[in-house]
Structures are given as C-alpha cells and as structure tokens.
C-alpha cells in the first residue's frame, strides 16, 4: 500500500470485527464516528473558508459601526436562538454517539464465566515476557505445534501447557484470558483483534474473545502499558488454529 493510500484509507485491523455483530456497518460506532467526524470537520473548514473569501478586509472599506476602540468595552453581539441551536445540536449528537457505544460495550464487558468458555488461558506478564498457561484438564488438540520448537534430537523444547511469548488457541470458541502481572503494569493487546486489557500486579483482570469472529492465523500480542527498558520488545504471538 502506498503512503498516500495509507493516509487516506487507513485500514482498520485493530477494531474488533463489528464488536461481535452488535455494531455492524454504517449504523455501527466505527462508521458513525467516521461520518460525524467528517461532517463536523467539513462544517468548520467550509464555514471558515467562506468567511475568508466573503469578508476579507479590503483597502478603503468603511469602518464598521461597532468597530473596536482601545479602552472601550465593545457592543455585545449574539443571537440566543442561534447560540441555543449550536448548543443543543452537539448535545444531541454526543448523546447519540454515547448511545451507540453502549451495545458494543455491553458485549465487550460481558466476560463469560469460566464454565461457559471453551478455554481459559492464564496470562502472566513479567518484565519482559508473556507466559501463557492452559488448564490441566484441557486436551491440547493434535497438530497444535506452532508454539513448540523441536531441537535436533526431536525433543520438544517447550512444555506445551506453559508457553512463553507464544499461544495457540482453537478457532471457533470462546476464549477467556485471566490476566495477571508479577512486577509492574503491563497491558495485553491483541493488535489485529483490538482486545486490550491492563495487567495489574495484585489484581486479576479479565478479557475474552470469540474466535469464530476472526479468521484463523497468526496474530500479534504487544505490551501497551509502559513497563521499562525492553517494553518495546515485550511481544508475543497468538495462533488461532482450526481444529
């Protein structure tokens, strides 16, 4: 993608796909924000351009009747009807934007209980590493080997139930993340899916994804809460694999 295309059509990999179907298409929060941003921006820029073209000062213009004079508080200008209009209209707009934020919010914050999920992953963040632990009773499907590297003698280098900086989860399931931090604040951010949750020492935080909403493949995990020297290297991979 060229630079220009990048600036004009920024593709949106990080917005969670439709927020689980609660916020699809032009009625959804992403598009509504886009549309109203453009309308508001255009309103201001066009009005300003109009002012600059129509009311530019020319040599010899007569002095305005309420022109300013040093040391004199000028006539007050205003029009209550217009002023109330541009108070109420933005008010309605932001209430509308708040309202359409609610459905996706409800969906994201309704973290499923552990019994309702297909897999609970314990995520531990330490300086500067992600550790993923799968439950003991979880049967790791055959072929889930993306996170295990083999050495020359054919022995798997990593214990598959605990993996470092790498996670493999099934496609088409509800995955819950119990997020812990051992030392300082970190944040668990699956870049292309748009899930972000701080990891706070002493407090377990929760996050979840429905992997049937995303394509199988490799996704990236970044740490997005500043955590020290190797913050920008605290990366991990998550493979969403079809059974």
């Amino acid at each position, binding site marked *: 993608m060229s630079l220009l295309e990048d600036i004009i059509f920024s593709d949106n990999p990080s917005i969670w796909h439709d927020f689980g179907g609660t916020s699809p298409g032009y009625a959804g929060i992403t598009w509504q924000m886009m549309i109203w941003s453009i309308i*508001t921006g255009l309103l*201001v820029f066009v009005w300003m351009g109009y002012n600059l073209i129509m009311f530019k000062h020319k040599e010899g213009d007569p002095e305005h009747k309420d022109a*300013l004079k040093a040391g004199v508080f000028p006539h007050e200008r205003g029009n209550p009807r217009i002023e109330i209009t541009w108070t109420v209209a933005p008010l309605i707009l*932001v209430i509308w934007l708040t309202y359409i934020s609610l459905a996706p919010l409800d969906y994201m914050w309704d973290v499923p209980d552990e019994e309702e999920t297909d897999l609970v992953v314990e995520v531990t963040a330490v300086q500067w590493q992600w550790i993923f632990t799968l439950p003991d009773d979880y049967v790791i499907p055959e072929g889930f080997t993306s996170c295990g590297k083999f050495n020359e003698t054919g022995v798997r280098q990593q214990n598959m139930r605990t993996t470092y900086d790498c996670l493999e989860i099934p496609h088409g399931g509800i995955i819950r993340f119990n997020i812990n931090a051992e030392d300082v*604040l970190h944040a668990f951010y699956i870049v292309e899916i748009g899930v972000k949750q701080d990891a706070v020492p*002493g407090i377990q935080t929760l996050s979840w994804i429905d992997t049937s909403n995303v394509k199988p493949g490799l996704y990236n995990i970044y740490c997005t809460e500043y955590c020290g020297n190797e913050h920008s290297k605290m990366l991990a991979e998550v493979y969403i694999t079809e059974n």
Partner: protein
Amino acid sequence: MKGANLKILSVGFLISILVAISAFPTSDGLPSGITDPTTSTVEANGCSCHNPDPTTSVNVELILPENFTAGVTYTLTLNLSGGPNDGVRGDNYGGFFIKATHGTLEPLENDTSVQKPFDETHLTHTTEGNDYRGWNFSWTAPEKDDVIVTFSAYGNSVNGADGNQNDYWNSGSFDLMGVNAVAVVDVDHGELSTPQKFIYAFTILAVTLGVVVIGNRMVTKEQSFEEVLKDYWKYIYPWLTSTDHKYIGILYIVTGFAWFFIAGVLGLMIRLQLFEADNDFLTYQEYNSTFTMHGTTMIFMAAMPIIFGFANYLIPLQIGCRDMAFPRLNAMSYWLLPTGGIVIYMGYFTGGAGDVGWTGYVPYATSETSTVPGTDFWVAGQIMLGASSTLTAINFVTTILRMRAPGVTFMRMPLFTWSIFVTVFLLLLAIPVFAVALILLMADRTFGTLYFSGSCAGDLMGTTACSDPILWQHLFWYFGHPEVYIVILPAFGVLSEIISTFSRRPIFGYTSMVYAMATIGVISFVVYGHHMFTTGADPLFRFIVMLTTMLVAVPTGIKIFNWLATMTGGSIVTKTPMIFALGTVITFTIGGITGIILASIPLDIAFHDTYFVVAHFHYVLVGGTIFAFLGGVYYWFPKMTGKMMNETLGLTHFAFSFIFFNAAFYPMHNVGISGMPRRYATYDPALTEMNQFISIAAFIFGFAQLIFVYNVIYSYKYGEEAGDDPWDGWSLEWATSSPPPHNSFTEIPTLKSAEETE
C-alpha cells in the same frame, strides 16, 4: 567602527562554532569490533556478521584473578548478558571469541562447548557451546610475570531465530597484571551516552561563545575582565531581581520557549530513533528517558510557563492595575521554575534521567528497574514546579478578584483574562493533589512506604494490607486531565482576542463564551477516568466518564462556532496573528474530533496507548496551545517591545509550521490504527515507510521554528515602530503605551462601555 566590530564578532562566532564542532564528542567510543586481523578467524568459526556494529546493551564480562604468577594455569569465565533473548529459554543464543596477548588459552578438559581451532591461539564456542551465555576455559600464564596481559573478548547475543537479524554483539578488553608488573595509570573515559554528548556539546558551545563575546569586548573597548562583566551585569541585574510583572512575564515566556527548544530537540531524537525499526541510535533506556523528559518538559516547563508568561504580562494590563497582587510571590513562582527544571534534568548527569513517562505510572515508578537517582530527581523537580504553579494560581486569583480598574466588571473582562481566571481555579484544585501524590511517591521510593507499589505488608496479627497501583492513576489523572485544560483554555482566550480584533468587530456571544469556559473548567474534573478505560476499573465509573467526556464537546463546539460567527460579516484582516489563529482553529478541530473518538470506550480500547493517542494530544497541545501562543507572540510582541514583527517572515513561519505539523502528526493516526503502541523504541518493520515520512516532516517542522527565532531577534532590532494600538484592539493593554511605562499605567484607567458612550 560599528561595522568592523560586527565583522570581528562574526568571525569570533564562526571560530567558536568550529571549535565546538571539533570538540563535539563523536560516537566512536567502542573498539572497532571484529575486524582485521581477527575477522578471518572469527568468520571461519561462524560467530560474526550478525550485525555490523557493536551494541552497548550487550555486556561482555571476563572474570579474572587479581593478578597472575608466571607459569600458573588459571580457570577463567566469560559471561555474556543483555541483548536479545536475555532470558532462560531456547537454544542458539550466544557465541564468543577470546584472544590473549600473552600466555596460552586452552579449553578445559572434557568441555565440549569451547574449542581451540587448529593452528590458532584464540578460543571460541562450538556448536554445542552456542546454547550458553557463559563459558569456562583455562589460561596458562607466560614465563614472565612483569607484563600486563590484555584479553580481547567478543560476545554475540543471539535471539535464537533463524538468520542473523536482531542479534547483537559487543566486545571488551580486559587487563591482567603480573605480580611484578608496574601499573600504568590509565583513566577509563568510558562511553558517553547520546544525551550526554548533546549536553557536553551545548556546554562547549556556551563557554566558547562566552569567551568570544567577553574577549571581544575586552579587546575592542580595552576594558578589563571585571569592567566587561560589570557592564553586562548592568543588563542582567534587573532580570534577576525584578518583581515587575512585565519583567517576570518576559522571563517566563523566554524560559518557556528555551525549554520548548530543548524538549523539541528531545522530540527530534525520538523521531531519529524511530526513523527505522530496530534502530540503535539510542539504547532503550536512553529512549525511555528521552520521551519522559520530552513530555515532562513540554507540559510543565514549556507550555505552562509560556501561558503564565503571557498571563503575567497581560492580566495586570488588561484589568488595569499596576502589578500583580503579590509581586514578590510572583518572582518566587518564577524562580522555582528554572530551579525545578534543572533538578529534573540533573538525572542526565547521574547515569540516566527519569524514565517513567510523564505519567510516572506505579509500580514501575516505585520499582528498582526505573532509573536511580534520575527518577528521584524527576519527582523532586516536579514537586518544585507544583509549588510554583500553586503560588501562581493564588496570585492570579487574588489579582483578578481584587484589583480590577473601574469599569472592568466581571462581564467586561477581556476573554483572555477570563480564560486565565478559569485556568487558575483549575490549577488551585488540581496541582496540590498532584504534589501530594508526588510526595507519597517520593516516600515509596526513598523510605520504603507502600502507598502505590502493589506489594503487600503483613502486621503482627497476620493480616496483610496490599497497596493498589491503580490509586496513583486516580490521583494522577484527577490532576492530569484538568492539567490538559489548564494548557488549552488560555489558548482559547488568545484565539478569542485575536479573532475578534482581526475581524474588526466584537466577539460573537461574549456571555456564552464565558459560560462555555467555566463549563469546560467544571467538567474537566469529572472526566479523568477516560484515561483508565483499560485498567479494569468499575464499569459504571467508566460509563459515566465516557458520557461526561463526550459532553466536553458541547462547550468547545460553542467556542468554535462563536469564533466563526465573529468572522462572518466582519472585515477580516489576514495578518500573521490571525493566520496563526485560524490555523489553530483547524488543527484544534481535528484534535477535538479525535478526542470524541477516543471518548467512546469500544474505540478507545482499540486505540488506547497507541500512536492514535499521540496524534490526538499533539493536535490539541501543539496544534492548539503552541500555535495559539505563537499567534499570541505575533499579536502582543508590538505591545511588549514597541516594534512590529516582520510579516513576510511570520507568514513563512506559519506556512512551514502548519504544513509540516500536519505532515508529521496526521499520519500518526494511521500508524496508531495499525497498532503501533506509543513509547515503543522500535516497531513492526511494515510501518517503516510511514515512520520515516513522519520523522522527515517532524525535522522540517522543528527547523521551521528557527525562522521564528530569527524573526523575533530581527524584529526586535529592525522592526517598525508599533504605536500604542497597532491592531485596533479594545482591551486596556492597548490603551497604554508600547512598551508600557515602568508602572504599567501612569494613571489607573477606566474601562468605558460602548453602550454608555453613545
């Protein structure tokens, strides 16, 4: 005579710059690495060509005995730390190479990790040996023990992945003395960090310039050193001792712009580091210090001083009094500012400035992994700046409440005065909270208290109490969000003044402007939770702050529409201050819109702590505050100096600033949407193109500000005479002379009203 003097001076300047450049420490402090004559042997054993340059983040350590006796065999250990994959996992993650000037190196018996290649004198790792980060081997001392043996060791820190990318290496030279050797004292100069290089270079420049300027005076005027100093002292003394609001105002403004320049250089260092992925221009630690100091300096030592400089200069003039209510307190507020700033920057001389981000999030800020004592200096300096702002706030509240001239009622105050009036209330309510939080943080760091650290302490009854790291975020953002409005509200005041004056008519909806500012001030205290959407705070709390944050758009919208309505039907004069004001309205509108996008929690969860946020607040703080106050300089410079600023230079400055500001910061939205987190020293190489575009634009934006510096100096010397009211403004500062007399007003003015005079 004068021309000849100028010629001598400029030659002196040139020479001083040349001297400074030649003395500029270069970055070539390390040995040249694995090159001739060792290249061929190292290459033959496969542990070079990973990376062309050594990296300071890799540590090569050779454990040696204190000295050696002739003929004895010693076991030596070489350890490698730092670099990629510095943990305890994976294989293929290290290699080494060692050579000694005397004696014989041999692998230990039965050790398969170290080998001595046939017909060579050095040791290196074997295939098996590259799974380790430490190696043991033996060294037999030479027959003479009156020599100093030098070991040259190279360590390669490998990330275990295929290929040589992201592997880093370093080398070290270690001396071992024989028992009878005589030591030659050799001072180790060590490697200078990049910020140190800048500081040293600036110091060298300043000292050489001082020598040239004073020396020139001594030679041309045949004065003694003391006489020259006395002569300069005459000019410096009033600035050091004055309690006059005009002097203090200009001191504030100049100090603010000076820190703005320093923080700008830091910002450009960030952009240089981000010019390509995995750049090693700065180490990660230096990078973290750089963005911390950039943010802290810009907010507390650049934006706020510039604002309070203008407020100091203008508020007494606009409300028609001779000085601030507490002039000595005012001077103290000012002098706390450079002092606090220097304390914060002290970190650079102690092995790394504070690296906790301008937000100083705990428990990182209380942990041992943050810079010590750089972060302590950061905290201490911030407390001083907090004291400074609190005193300023008290001063302004008193002045505006008690010292208005006849006719200046509340609803006839200029809008800039109103904006400062609202701002100082925010300061008074917000800054002390931050100061207290900083003191608690200081206690955590130095006395081992547990306010924020997230760890637990048990008492004798067996109960444990744990501190909550989120507490800091509540305290910080309770202050931090009003702080943002503290920085933007005065800009609204400046815009209102400029737009009204240059449209040649009164502001549209004066009363609603005042109420809008007051509303923004009140709402600012109940929105701070929007910085904490991803912390896992109470959902109800998060929902409420989403709503209140959205509501900020309403009074802000009123202000923008009122400005536009002021222009409609007016007679718009497009001089530099107006052009800057209109540019500000555009960039601020963009920043406001992205603010609404970020207020929506579902979208904020995706954008939080990415470059989208960076783009948003640069649009608001640079595109809003800094642009507005640059316009303010062009607008009030004639009042402060009595000279007009150069229009051509001003418009050029605007054109470069506006275009390259947008070129630098607009693409950051896209970089952020693509998922690049803020405070990252490196990034996904797919984003290289965008980041390079941003960096180049940022550099041009930075250099464009030199036009402004030149314009100020040029106009101060050669500008046209301004007269009392060059722009036809109405407020009382235009009713006194330019520059104002010593007491600001020879007699206290009365503000008339257009309604009454007719």
